[in-house]
C-alpha cells in the first residue's frame, strides 16, 4: 500500500495540490449537508443495518472527517488505524465486507457528485479536480477494505487457534493414565499439535498408558493414519503405551484398504474397553461394591 502512497500523479504536482486544498475546503464547508446525504444513501442501500442510528451518525462523522483528512494530507496511516479500530468494533456485530466497502464507495460517490455540481460550469477545471480527487479516493477505498479484511482475518486466525487449543484436551483420569479424545476432523496441523500436547502431557503427568479415543473423528486418511502411528511411536519413546479406541467400521475399512501398517498399534473397540485394558496394564482392579446404585 505504501508503494502506491509514494506515487501520486507527479505531472501537475503543484497544480494538483492547490486543487486538493480547494477541494478539501469545499468538503469542510459543506460537511453537515454532505454527511447527511451520505447517511441517507447508506440507509437507502440498506447497509449497516446492524448498527443503531446514533452509532451510524457517530461513525459516519468520523469516517467523513478521516476521509477529508486523507485528501488533505495524502497520508493514509491515520485512516488505517481508524479503519482497523472500526473493524474491530463492527466485525463482532456481523458487518460484512461488502457493507464496509459499500459505504466508502457511497461516500466517494456523494463527494464526487458535489464536485460535479460545484464545477459544472468549467469542464476543464472539473477534469483537473477529478484527476486530483480520484486517485486519493481510490486509495482510501482500498485502505479501508484492506484494513477491514486484515482485521477479519486476524479474528479468524485467533478463533482457529482458540478452537485448536480447545479441541485436543489431554485428560488425566487416573494416576499414570491419560485420555485423549479426538473430536472432529484431524488435519496434519492438528495432528502435529495433538502429538506435541500429548507428549508434554505424558511428561507432565508421568503417564504410562494413554488411551486415544477417535470415536468423534468422522474420517481418517492416509496422512492422519501415519500421524497416529507416529504419535504412538513417539509416546513409546517416552515410555508410555498407547491404546487406540473407537475406530469406526468405516475407518477400519479405510485403514485396511489403504494399507496402513497398524500391526504395532494396540486397538480396542470402544473407550470403555480401552480404559479397562489400561487399568489392567497399570495393575488397577475396579470392583463394584455390593449394594451400589448402578443398574
Amino acid at each position, binding site marked *: 500500500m505504501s508503494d502506491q502512497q509514494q506515487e501520486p500523479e507527479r505531472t501537475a504536482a503543484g497544480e494538483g495540490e492547490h486543487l486538493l486544498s480547494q477541494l478539501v475546503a469545499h468538503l469542510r464547508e459543506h460537511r453537515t449537508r454532505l454527511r447527511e446525504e451520505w447517511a441517507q444513501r447508506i440507509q437507502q442501500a440498506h447497509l449497516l443495518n446492524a448498527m443503531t442510528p446514533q452509532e451510524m451518525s457517530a461513525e459516519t462523522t468520523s469516517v467523513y472527517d478521516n476521509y477529508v483528512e486523507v485528501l488533505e494530507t495524502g497520508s493514509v496511516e491515520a485512516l488505517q488505524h481508524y479503519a482497523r479500530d472500526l473493524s474491530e468494533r463492527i466485525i463482532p456485530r456481523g458487518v460484512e465486507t461488502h457493507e464496509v466497502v459499500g459505504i466508502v464507495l457511497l461516500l466517494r460517490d456523494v463527494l464526487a457528485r458535489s464536485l460535479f455540481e460545484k464545477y459544472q460550469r468549467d469542464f476543464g477545471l472539473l477534469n483537473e479536480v477529478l484527476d486530483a480527487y480520484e486517485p486519493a479516493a481510490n486509495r482510501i477505498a482500498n485502505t479501508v477494505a484492506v484494513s477491514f479484511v486484515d482485521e477479519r482475518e486476524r479474528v479468524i486466525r485467533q478463533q482457529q487457534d482458540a478452537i485448536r487449543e480447545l479441541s485436543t484436551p489431554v485428560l488425566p483420569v487416573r494416576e499414570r493414565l491419560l485420555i485423549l479424545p479426538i473430536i472432529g476432523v484431524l488435519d496434519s496441523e492438528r495432528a502435529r499439535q495433538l*502429538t*506435541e500436547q500429548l*507428549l*508434554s502431557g*505424558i*511428561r507432565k503427568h*508421568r*503417564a*504410562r498408558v494413554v488411551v486415544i479415543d477417535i470415536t468423534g473423528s468422522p474420517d481418517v486418511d492416509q496422512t492422519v493414519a501415519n500421524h497416529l502411528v*507416529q*504419535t504412538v*511411536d*513417539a*509416546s*513409546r*519413546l*517416552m*515410555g*508410555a503405551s498407547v491404546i487406540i479406541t473407537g475406530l469406526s467400521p468405516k475407518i477400519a475399512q479405510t485403514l485396511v484398504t489403504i494399507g496402513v501398517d497398524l500391526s504395532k498399534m494396540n486397538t480396542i473397540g470402544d473407550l470403555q474397553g480401552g480404559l479397562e485394558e489400561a487399568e489392567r496394564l497399570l495393575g488397577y482392579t475396579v470392583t463394584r461394591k455390593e449394594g451400589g446404585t448402578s443398574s
Partner: protein
Amino acid sequence: MNGGPALVSIMRQGSNLIASVHTALDDSELVRFERDLVDQIGEFRSRGVIIDVAALDVIDSFAALTLRRIAEMARLRGAVTVLVGIQPEVAFTMVRLGIGTGDVPTALDLEEGLEMLARTAPHPASGADGRR
C-alpha cells in the same frame, strides 16, 4: 577428550548400571561410550542397564543405532537395557525422521526405568518378590 567435564557418567547402583549422557556426543564419542559401557557391564556383572538421555536435545540416526547396538550387546552379556529420559521434542523429531529404538524398552525417566528393571528382571540379590 581428556580434560574438560565428562561427557558421560557411568554409575553402578546395586545390580544395575546407570549411564547418563550429559551432552551431545559426536560419532567417535558414541563409539567410545559404547565400548566403555559394554566393558563395565561385564566388570560389574550388571543385570540391568539404564541409559539416561534426558540432557540430549537431539538423537540422530547414528546415536539411535549405537543405543540399539549397546542394548543388543548388553543382552548378549546378560543385561536388560532401558532407555530413559527422551524429551517430547526429541521423540517427535525422531518419529518424523523415522528414527526408532527398535526393541529397546523405553521409560519416562530414571525412576520409571529402575522400576521397569525391577519388574522385568527380578534379581535374587534384591530380595523381595521382584515386583515394585
